[in-house]
């Protein structure tokens, strides 16, 4: 049994490089057909013809497409993602800086979303058809129906501008800039490592609002799936057995019904988590959050192809990674899978 599990896992893992190759290829092609001249981003609109030509040569844009692709792949194989013309750093450095910011946001968001969404979903399922159920469904669906940029703007308007409860856009109070040595680029983690409690508190305060907006969006899906799974589980015969044993409702709901769906929920959460990484694109713009979503959008609109390819690849790898993780968790945690 263990070997068949491992085999299935190996098969899933083996497909990842193929998918990634496809991802790179598609991104590469999109980048090349884009009607934006990549040279523009480097030399600007005013540069004389010889400067433009020199930059074109430097980027290797004079080579045939397949040669450019091959060069990119060979560099990628040794971990060289090239240099971003927008930031004049290597794409690797940029990703090390921007990706943790997005991950931090998504991580806090997923904890909030799961922490609120799961109990709500369970409650809705237990109270199926009642006013509580309807309320929860509407509240959750509302989160899924509001464009995230409207939600972000409204949230800023209410919690920052009107009530003054939350700090404004950005990742930290600028007085704290450079206060803690960069280790992981997760600001909260770095602050803790440095023992700077004010910086940590400030970072958390800045995180809460954008993460809350993302979480509301994600919560809808998590609550909805929890409810659906729970209804399914509660209708199971083993729940009747559990009740017939005289167990308390809490135990029936959480140990028996929820226990049966928790593995499926883990996969749902993992997928939502991956989805949040890209849901952050718009939120980051409104909240001036220096994350990967903003990096990707700006690079895209500047035809900064190394940056776009690198960042897409990272998001793709993360997405596939989470998928794989979900798969692994499912296979390892659920005794039913053989």
């Amino acid at each position: 049994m263990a070997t068949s599990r491992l085999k299935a896992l190996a098969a899933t893992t083996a497909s990842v490089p193929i998918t990634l190759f496809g991802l790179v290829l598609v991104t590469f092609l999109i980048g090349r057909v884009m009607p934006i001249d990549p040279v523009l981003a480097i030399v600007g609109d005013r540069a004389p013809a010889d400067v433009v030509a020199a930059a074109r040569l430097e980027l290797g844009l004079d080579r045939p497409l397949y040669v450019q692709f091959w060069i990119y792949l060979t560099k990628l194989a040794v971990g060289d993602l090239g240099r971003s013309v927008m930031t004049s750093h290597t794409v690797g450095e940029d990703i090390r800086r921007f990706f943790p910011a997005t991950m931090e946001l998504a991580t806090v968001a997923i904890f909030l979303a799961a922490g609120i969404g799961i109990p709500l979903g369970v409650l809705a399922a237990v109270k199926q058809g009642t006013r509580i159920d309807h309320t929860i469904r509407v509240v959750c669906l509302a989160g899924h129906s509001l464009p995230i940029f409207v939600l972000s703007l409204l949230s800023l308007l209410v919690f920052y501008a009107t009530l003054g409860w939350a700090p404004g856009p950005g990742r930290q109070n600028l007085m704290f800039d450079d206060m803690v040595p960069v280790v992981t680029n997760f600001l909260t983690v770095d602050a803790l490592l440095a023992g700077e409690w004010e910086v940590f508190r400030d970072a958390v305060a800045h995180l809460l609002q954008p993460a809350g907006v993302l979480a509301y969006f994600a919560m809808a899906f998590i609550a909805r799936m929890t409810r659906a799974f729970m209804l399914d589980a509660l209708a199971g015969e083993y729940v009747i057995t559990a009740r017939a044993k005289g167990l308390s409702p809490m135990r029936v709901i959480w140990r028996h019904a929820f226990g049966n769906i928790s593995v499926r929920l883990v996969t749902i959460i993992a997928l939502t988590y991956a989805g949040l990484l890209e849901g952050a694109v718009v939120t980051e713009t409104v909240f001036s959050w220096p994350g990967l979503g903003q990096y990707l959008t700006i690079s895209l609109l500047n035809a900064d192809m190394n940056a776009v390819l690198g960042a897409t690849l990272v998001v793709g790898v993360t997405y596939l990674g989470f998928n794989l993780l979900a798969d692994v968790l499912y296979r390892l945690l659920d005794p039913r899978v053989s």
Partner: protein
Amino acid sequence: MSTTWREWLISETPASRAQAAWGRRYRLWCDFRANRLAMAGLIVAVAMVSVSLLAPVLAGFDPGAQNLTLRLARPSAAHWFGTDELGRDLFARVLFGGRVTLGMVVAVVVMVAPLGLLVGCIAGYMGGIVDRLLMRVTDVFLAFPRLILALAFVAAIKPGITSAIFAIVLTAWPPYARLARAETMSIRNADFIAAVRLTGASGPRIVLRHIIPLCLGSLVVRVTLDMSSIILTAAALGFLGMGAQPPSPEWGAMIATARRFILEQWWVPTIPGVAIFVASLAFNLLGDGLRDVLDPKQR
């Protein structure tokens, strides 16, 4: 006929296949009707569609007519929702915006459902190398950050409604393919398919006549639930300047151009925001209700 329609429909002993089929549909409708939230969603959705279709009659103003002397007017008897930064009537723009948005939704659905269904059914039915190949392609598109792929695609063609539609299709089909594949795999080995195969039916015929119809239920549910995400993606593209272009009264683009007024003339960006919210919520509620009825095992 002495019995009423209703009795004919709910009869436990239908006399014909048609009666049985209609009876089944009627019963589904009764189940659906009992779900008040879903009914609310249906009513709002139908209302929005009809109001959008009747926009030229109802609007009272040309959505593109500028009146620069009357810019950013508050809601009034003449302009129910006020006017925007170019003095255009917001009510008319929201109504016509419904046409754009719902039109985009329909266009996307019309393309994405058959595409996903076809890919999924072929992969599921053929299995083997075809399946693996198609699923890898699906994986590639799934692993893409959705909005980024759409953005990149639009940027690669040119901003506008048509490219936005294609971009959304490009990002929306993989889940359909997955769904259809899963359904096909579960149906493929069913006894009745074996029976059909024994009668000498060809592969394409089996897929078209027997497998696809059985996937339709979950497909309808998926489509309805997806409508809201299509609306939101279209709006996000519009918001980022990559969807419908001004002066088209697309809701997302309206918010994008009007968000700068959020502090003083808050209603200008808020009204299209509400429109998006209501439309999207209506489809979500509708989809939820449909899922309960049509696809109880997914809920």
